[in-house]
Every structure is written in C-alpha cells, then in structure tokens.
C-alpha cells in the first residue's frame, strides 16, 4: 500500500495498462514530451515512444474521432482532452458516433475507447477552464460517464474504463489532482463501473455527490454531525449507468435526499437523480428532494470573490442539509 495523489494514481494506471496491453495508446494535446499540462502522462513518452504516446494537433474532434476509428481496428485508445471545456468540438463524434456505434450496427461494431478530461472550478480557471460538462454526456445512452473522487477509485475505475468494450468518459476534477491523497494498493484491483459507494454512513439525510463535491459532502456531514444531524453520503463514482439500487436504498432508509453538484443547477445531472428519487422512492420521502448546485450563469467567473460565490463548498452544503433536516 502506498499513499498517492489523485494524479499520481492516474499516471500510474496509464503506465501499468500500457505495459499490460500493447493495444493501449495515449493521445492528446501536449501528452508527449511535456507529459500533459497537468502531467498525467508524464514519463509515458520516454517509456513507450512516438507510436503509443501521440501529441496531436489542436483538433479535439480528431482526437475523439480518430480514437473511435483506432478502437475499431484493434487499439484501446485513452485520449486526453486538455480541459473538459474544450471537448465541445468533439460533441458530434461522441454523441453521433461513439455513443451510437454499437446500437446502430446491431452490436457488430463497438468503441472500446476512454476519453479523459480534467473538469471543475475553484482553481482560478474562469469560464473556459472550470466547466463541468458531465450532464451533456450522461444524457446520451451509449456513453458511460465516470467521475472518481479518490486515488483508489481513480485507479480502479480507470482500469475498468480502459478494459471496457464501450466508450467511457472519465472526468477528473483538476482541483483534486494534487490536493487529494489516499491509499492505493499495489495489486491489480479494479473498481467496477456502475457502482456507487457509501462513504459515510448515516440515518437522517442522504447526500448524493461525485468528484470534488463528494469530498465537500463528507466535510459538511462532519460539520452537521456536531449539531446532531446524521448524514449518509453516497459517492456515485459512475454517473451513467447510475447505481440506482444504492441511491434508492439509502433514500428509502433516511427519507430525505440532497443532491450536490458543481455544474449549473438547471438541467444538471442532479436533476435526473432528483427525478429518479421522486419517482421511485416517493413513498419514503419526508421532505422535498433538494439540490445544492452551481448558479445558473454561463461560467465560473474569474475574480476570486466571484469564483467563491459560484463554487459550492462544505458550508453551502451544510446549510442545505440543515434546511432539509428541519422538515
């Protein structure tokens, strides 16, 4: 067992998977000699060379589209989109092509490809280096969407994503890259896609979160515990396919549900979780399904006062918990 940062766990996994399987390649902007702008691919070029660690031109549609093609002809590409904010030019390739390939070909073609992208705010990244883009893709059947919150899960889920036969979007909160550390075993363990984790057991309120917000939810749970409120935190880990069983059984136990996400509130991923809980656990609810989410402005503003205003944090979550607990 070793203590690794979030990004070290990702970097280790990429190298190990490339050693395990010649079919795994890495491509993206600056992933080669520079090792990625966050250093997620640092050292891979030196070990695996030009053929398997490919610096692409600034062409996001190409990065995804060529990964789709390469995955059809025997490779397992792991593409890096430098910031999730820049994935939008590849939307057509992800939504029209990667997501639909297996369905439209009646299972004769599949796309075993992983797209990694750093997302999220709180890092002075402003409108175009802070976005949370998961809801665009969780909406689309045929894409798997993963957002880990710990080095252990990052490694286990990235292994599962790379070995999966379908396209996986793997979003990594950039604020966690160096600030989050944790135990990572030296074994070849995997964390299965589509399984949430209960990271804090409780009885009165279920808080559902993922990524950085899963950490903030834990902090908030500790704060309100001192006030006598018992919170159960569910870290979704995989957003789609969603682990409905874990979500619903927790809500049926606690009777109250707060969903936390950093993305804009309106139409965000938490809206779907809210609908699922309202439809499938209605008889158990003792209060409204509520959300703490990013404000509905077109981006995270740059000035630190404005950024702090935008960002969901443990205090804002704790306030939401208190309000819901009062029902």
């Amino acid at each position: 067992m070793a203590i690794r940062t979030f990004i070290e766990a990702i970097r280790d996994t990429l190298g190990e998977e490339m050693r395990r399987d010649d079919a795994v390649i890495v491509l993206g902007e600056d992933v080669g000699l520079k090792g990625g702008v966050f250093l997620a691919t640092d050292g891979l070029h030196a070990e695996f060379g030009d053929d398997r660690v490919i610096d692409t031109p600034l062409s996001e549609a190409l990065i995804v589209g060529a990964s789709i093609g390469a995955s059809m002809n025997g490779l397992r590409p792991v593409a890096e989109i430098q910031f999730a904010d820049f994935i939008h030019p590849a939307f057509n390739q992800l939504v029209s092509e990667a997501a639909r390939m297996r369905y439209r070909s009646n299972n004769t073609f599949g796309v075993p490809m992983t797209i990694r992208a750093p997302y999220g705010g709180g890092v002075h990244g402003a409108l175009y280096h802070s976005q949370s883009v998961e809801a665009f893709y969780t909406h689309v059947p045929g894409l798997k969407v993963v957002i880990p919150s710990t080095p252990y899960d990052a490694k286990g889920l990235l292994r599962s994503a790379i070995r999966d036969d379908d396209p996986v979007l793997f979003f990594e909160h950039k604020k966690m890259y160096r600030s989050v550390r944790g135990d990572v075993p030296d074994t070849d363990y995997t964390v299965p896609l589509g399984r949430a984790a209960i990271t804090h057991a409780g009885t009165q309120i279920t808080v559902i979160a993922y990524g950085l917000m899963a950490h903030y939810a834990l902090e908030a749970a500790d704060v309100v515990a001192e006030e006598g409120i018992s919170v159960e935190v569910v870290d979704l880990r995989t957003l789609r396919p969603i682990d409905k069983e874990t979500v619903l059984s927790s809500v049926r136990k606690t009777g109250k549900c707060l969903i936390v996400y950093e993305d804009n509130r309106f139409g965000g991923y938490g809206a779907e979780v809210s609908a699922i809980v309202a439809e499938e656990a209605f008889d158990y609810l003792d209060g409204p399904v509520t959300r703490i989410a990013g404000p509905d402005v077109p981006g995270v503003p740059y000035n630190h006062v404005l950024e702090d205003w935008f960002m969901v944090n443990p205090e804002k979550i704790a306030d939401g918990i208190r309000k819901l607990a009062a029902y």
Partner: protein
Amino acid sequence: MAVTQKPTSDLAASVGLTNDDLVEMYRLVARARAVDERMWILNRAGRIPFVISGQGHEGAQVGIAWPLKRHFDWMAPFYRSIATCLTLGMTAQDILMAQYAKATDPSSGGRQMPGHYGHVGHNLLSLSSPVGTQMLHAVGIALAAKVRKTGQVAMTAMGEGSSNQGEVHEGLNFAAIHKLPFILVIENNGYAISVPISKQLATENVADRAAGYGIPGVVVDGSDVLACYKASKEAVDRARRGDGPTLIEAKVIRLTAHSSDDQQTKYRPEEELADLRSHDALPLFRDQLREAGVLTDELEASIAADIKREVDEATEHSESEPDPDPSTAMRWVFAEDWPSETPPAWGFGKSHGLEGHEGDASAAENAVD
C-alpha cells in the same frame, strides 16, 4: 485457363488487370445499378419509405474500391456507396435488406435508415447521417494500422458537399503529418442536395486542397472506371509503402434526385439533366469492354440475367424476412445489459396506436416500480 481464349486483352493489360477482373468490375457496376433501380421501384410502389441513391457514382466506386484487399483493408463508406459495398463483399440482398430495415439486415438490424450500410465481416464501417464524421474514423483506423504495423490501408468516401466539414481538414492534416495509410475519396457530383459546386468551393477542385496538406490530390473522370482504378491503385500502393495519404477526387454525376424526398427539377436545369446519360459510366464501360473484345453479346446477356435473378431473389427474401422485435430494442446500448437502464412504461408491445394497444402491462408495471 485452358478454355479461356485470351485471358488478358490489350485493354486489361494496359491497366495490369485480367479480362476476368474487367468482367467482374462490369458486373459490379451493373449490379449496383440494378439494385438501385429496384430500390426506386419499391419506393414508388410504396414498399419502402425512403431511397437514397448511388446512380451515376457506380463506375467510380467500383474502380476505386477494386485495389483494396477484401476483408483486410478498411472502408468507411457514405450513403451513396452501394457499388463500393458490393465491390468489397456485400451482396444485392445485403443492400436490399437495409432498404427494408428487417431484423436480419446486416447493416443495422433495421435500426438505421436505408443507405446507412456497414458490414463488420467486410471491414465496411457502419455510417451515420451527419456527413463527414467517418473521415476521422478512417484516419483512426489508418493510425491503428500504422501503430500495429498491419499493412492495412483505410479509405473513406464522401461527396464534395461533405468535404467542407471541419473534420475533413482535421483528418487530412493528421493523416499527412503521420503519413498514415489513408485515402480520401471525394465523389464530386456537383451538388450538395440543391447547392451547386459554385456555392460550395472557391477552387475548381476539392483535390486542389491536398497541396495545403502536402499530399497528392488527384482529379479523375468518374465515368472512366479504369482511370478511377488506376488512380486508386497508385494511392493504395503509396499508402501501403508508407508514403502517406492521397486525396482522390472523382468527378461523377448524380443521375437521380438527392433522395426520394427531393424534387431536383426545382434547382437543376433541364439541359443538364438531359445531358447526364452521356457521362454515365455504365454504358461507357460496357462499350469499352465490348470494343476490347472482353464483353460479348452472350456474356452481357448472361450477366444481365444473373443480376435480374439476384435482385428478384433479394427482393423476395427481404420482403419475407421478419421485422425486428421491440423486445430487442433496448439491446446493444452497451456490450452488456445494464439493469439501471429503464425500459419505457409501455413495455415492449408491437402496437403504438391508441386502438388495439398491445403494450405489455406487466413490463409496464415493473418499469414504474
């Protein structure tokens, strides 16, 4: 061989092929036309709701696909690629099954509109409707061929209209940088549905753009099957040698409206439509082969009879095949089933109308829990 009088005519020798090759190429052009004409008849007869046609492109498609190694090289086709798909191994029946969208349609099991061909056994990639996206898939296939050192070539085809998509630029740039074994075929028929070439391109040819990527751009007469073959053979050889991509632009004609939902007399001048047949590769290739002594009356008649039988049988077969069962409609979202993907409240009954509703009530109840 003993019974063949002269296996290689001067014409065949001039392009490095045999008479048998030429006859087979003619058969493919004629088969593609016959299948296509049958599609329109079936559409007008109300048997199939939609047709998108390859008429006028067939000669170029057969000539260009011919140098590819079957089941080894890859092709990312587009919606007019009927002759391409036939050349690489799909049958008349495979093509007609896609028109009828039956459960056993090899392209999509009835999930896609007609024209969206694909066949994993022939390395023919499944295609979508947003045009030009397949460009990047073919480039990625070529990248994998290079990384894995397989010796494969990847080709894609599209119209000149699609060539204006940004993905074409991204793909050509990348393929050229890495000298990928890749060929972009532009089948330029002069129209993007109704928009003429003068409003699509500022240059005379799409192939002129190749210079901007540092790769060869070749313009070829799409009504000349063997000229198309020669251009393609050169590009395939070049790609296989590791010398990088080629852009081939075949000037073809569109003999039909864009699709069965289009009225082309609204935007194409009468004299243009009247003149089209003189650029049709089918009669031109037939005359060329007859003149060279490769095609005789007898052989031509027997090919025509074979094709008519094939197309008749394919039509009958496709008519008789079952529709897909709605109980299969949620399969293959992913490689495996996911219990959390919720089926619709109305279950998997076949009827969607208000009358005679046959929705599976128990499935519906389960779905809403």
